[in-house]
């Protein structure tokens, strides 16, 4: 039987806090009448509160019995079904439903989340729940939801100039604007954003990207907010094509799951009891404005260990390099091809000497932007924080990347990799595709033994100690080492995507050392 107001008892993730021999009398007021604890200077653990919110949503609010974000602390039992060898794993560590997890992480990091899926799958409900968790009343939330529709004007979205001031105004400063209330909210919901006319999308872009609205030379500064956009069509189509800049501002994409018919009885119970979860959000999982700000700060404070950062760098380095794009190294990118108005796949056949099914960069039409990388790092940290970790683990990266890169890494469905029967499904399942890319990248990283033997990392470490006071002889030695490394690479190995940034880095270091050496000789 489901208790619609029941919040899971802490700790929802046992073992994430160190044990203590001290007993605090503040604990006296924590118990069955939860939410009644005394005010203390000791801040409550917000990751625990967010996990409680997660469990309240999955157990009572949204019927989402899925665990697609899988964690294992021991090898999981797995079973294979059918001719296509579909693998079902039983995770051994606490695992999560992406459809609830990602919107919650988005609430913590205050970015932009797109919920996609067919009608009636609870996209708007989950967005509304996020606003309720941020402390707004249901009435406020319902009024603030912006419903995309073909007649939506900029005034509908942003507000109106007050007619009386418009008539009497001598200049623009005299015009008063009645800004729409949703602009000032910390959770913003745009329902069916792909039904908004293109011109209004541009106004929305300014609010989303730059956090302000502009009308009649007046500016409304919006607060930091968590955005939730919904769309029925995953490709961003709809009544109007979504402008690319707007799509690019979306930080994370999560798909709604289908309804598992085995849970029909739960639906029946709700209908019989007349219960609407959004009307009974427990007070103890509602976040104050200060808590939301603290959450965001705590997430950014999660550590990213060097070896894991290095694997993210390695993964990201596969995609931008495109040998046939240019004659000079620096321009050998997919961006060069796009700027020339050519589709990268049309030139891809010119790439030779490499196995096109194994070259990860061949599967995409673009590389990763700085924004995409920054977004990925924030959500990866949020995932680790949600799990009560002080530092990111590799699995956090593996689980989060697909949702951040979902729309940011553009797949080339014609790539030879997808022609293999076992990879065909990855054309449509982009979450598994990105995860597969990351797994393959890690395999390559291990094969190259980069954890132990990474010459570029050694050169970097040397360089970061600074040039000041470095003897000319030492600089010359370093230059020789760089040249030897490049010569070594040039000898036997093909020019793979992951080598591109390394070669550019060595060229950079070589130039810095050369300039320093020249200056050193001149001053001598």
């Amino acid at each position, binding site marked *: *039987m*489901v*208790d*619609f*107001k*029941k919040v899971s008892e802490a700790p929802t993730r046992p073992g994430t806090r160190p*044990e203590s*021999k*001290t*007993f*605090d*009398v*503040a*604990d*006296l*007021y*924590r*118990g*069955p*009448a*939860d*939410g*009644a*604890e*005394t*005010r203390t200077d000791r801040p409550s653990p917000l990751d625990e509160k967010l996990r409680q919110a997660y469990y309240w949503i999955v157990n009572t609010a949204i019927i989402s019995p899925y665990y697609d974000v899988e964690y294992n602390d021991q090898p999981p039992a797995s079973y294979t079904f059918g001719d296509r060898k579909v693998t079902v794993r039983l995770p051994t560590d606490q695992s999560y439903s992406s459809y609830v997890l990602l919107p919650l992480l988005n609430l913590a990091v205050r970015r932009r989340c797109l919920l996609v899926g067919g009608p009636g799958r609870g996209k708007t409900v989950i967005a509304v729940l996020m606003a309720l968790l941020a402390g707004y009343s249901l009435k406020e939330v319902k009024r603030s939801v912006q419903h995309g529709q073909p007649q939506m004007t900029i005034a509908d979205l942003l507000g109106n100039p007050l007619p009386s001031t418009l008539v009497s105004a001598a200049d623009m400063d005299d015009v008063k604007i009645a800004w729409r209330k949703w602009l000032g909210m910390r959770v913003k919901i745009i329902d069916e954003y792909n039904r908004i006319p293109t011109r209004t999308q541009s106004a929305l872009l300014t609010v989303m990207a730059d956090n302000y609205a502009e009308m009649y030379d007046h500016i409304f500064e919006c607060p930091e907010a968590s955005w939730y956009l919904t769309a029925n069509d995953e490709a961003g189509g709809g009544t109007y094509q979504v402008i690319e800049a707007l799509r690019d501002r979306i930080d994370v994409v999560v798909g709604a799951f289908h309804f598992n018919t085995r849970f029909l009885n739960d639906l029946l*119970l*709700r209908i*019989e*009891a*007349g*219960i*609407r979860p959004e*009307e*009974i959000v427990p*007070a103890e999982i509602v976040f104050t404005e200060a808590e939301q700000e603290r959450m965001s700060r705590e997430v950014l404070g999660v550590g990213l260990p060097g070896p894991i950062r290095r694997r993210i760098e390695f993964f990201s380095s596969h995609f931008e390099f495109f040998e046939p794009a240019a004659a000079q190294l620096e321009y050998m990118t997919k961006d060069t091809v796009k700027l020339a108005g050519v589709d990268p796949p049309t030139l891809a056949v010119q790439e030779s000497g490499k196995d096109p099914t194994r070259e990860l960069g061949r599967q995409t039409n673009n590389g990763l932007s700085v924004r995409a990388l920054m977004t990925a790092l924030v959500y990866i940290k949020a995932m680790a924080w949600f799990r009560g970790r002080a530092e990111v683990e590799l699995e956090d990266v593996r689980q989060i990347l697909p949702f951040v890169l979902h729309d940011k890494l553009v797949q080339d469905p014609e790539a030879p990799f997808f022609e293999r029967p076992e990879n065909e499904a990855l054309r449509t399942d982009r979450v598994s595709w990105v995860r597969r890319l990351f797994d393959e990248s890690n395999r390559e990283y291990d094969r190259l033994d980069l954890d132990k033997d990474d010459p570029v990392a050694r050169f970097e470490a040397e360089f970061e100690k600074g040039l000041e006071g470095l003897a000319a002889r030492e600089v010359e030695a370093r230059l020789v080492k760089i040249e030897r490394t490049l010569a070594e690479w040039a000898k036997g190995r093909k020019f793979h995507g992951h080598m591109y940034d390394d070669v550019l880095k060595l060229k950079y270091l070589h130039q810095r050392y050369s300039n320093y050496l020249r200056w050193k000789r001149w001053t001598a």
Partner: protein
Amino acid sequence: MIEGPLAEVLARDRDRYNARFAAARAADRRLAPEAFLRFLAETLDPLVRAAARADPSRIDVVVEALYDLSLKLMDKDCLGPSSRRPLIGEAWQKLLPRIAGLLVRDPGRVAGAVSNALFHLAEDGETAAARWLAEMERLAPLCPDPDIFLAAGQVAAWRSGQAQYRESALTVWRGLPDDLKYETLGLRTGSGPSPAELEQRLADPWQDPARDGRAEKTLALTARLGGFRGFGGVFLQPPRIASSNGSLIARDDRAAWLIFADRFGATLRRWDGQPPDGQDPEGEGDFKIEKHSGRIAKGGLEVRFEALAGPSSFASTTSTLALTLPLSHYVFLVAEV
């Protein structure tokens, strides 16, 4: 039949309150409408009337908070006819109406905190919980706001026997208004020792702060705690004592417990930490024990405890000696009092 302010609020927002009851009942079919109605009539109605007398403008807030809280507590068998903690119901009927002026200011927090406190205190027996309830009825008129009321409650919890809270309760105590500093320790305001002298008395956990500590002292058996689990105690085998970083730890083959003790009580709290490292198993106290005779000495004091002769283990802090016997499931505490 309920009449008055509670009935009016429920009637005004009938659908919402009905939906909340339906949600709670969907979760727990044992929640009988008749029992809840009886609770509303016998407990919540008089409480809401008292709140209405204190501040009629806050009635909607009070009803909403207490209605939700009572459903939550009933779901957990802490209120209503099947309550495992009858003292919580007693507090709703006696204490909360008496503090209606405080309750209306933060109803969910005050009623929830009182309920939670009684829930925890009753785990160590109804006596301590009843003592706390009586003490809160005495202290409530002296508390100007809910924060101070709840802070006084924390000090009262320590004095009702929850020795594990001693250090943090004393921190809370230092932040109380002067009159409550005296009253929470059982002293009359304006009488007795100076605040500095009080602090001095509180430095010794075995000193009653309400009494002059200069009287002649002796060594005494101050507490016996633990016992065989089969008879409602905590240990499966006769326990052994060790010291770890200034704490006393009792352990049987299955688990370990921290020992907390002072003038107002002694408690054991389950501990899942690492076993003591063995560097200082007998602790830091200057107790001297003659094992075969049970003679114990500290400073210039010496007493023979025949019943404690032949201990299986012992350890001490600067103020307390803990001993175990080979054939007993209890831990014995000796201190200078």
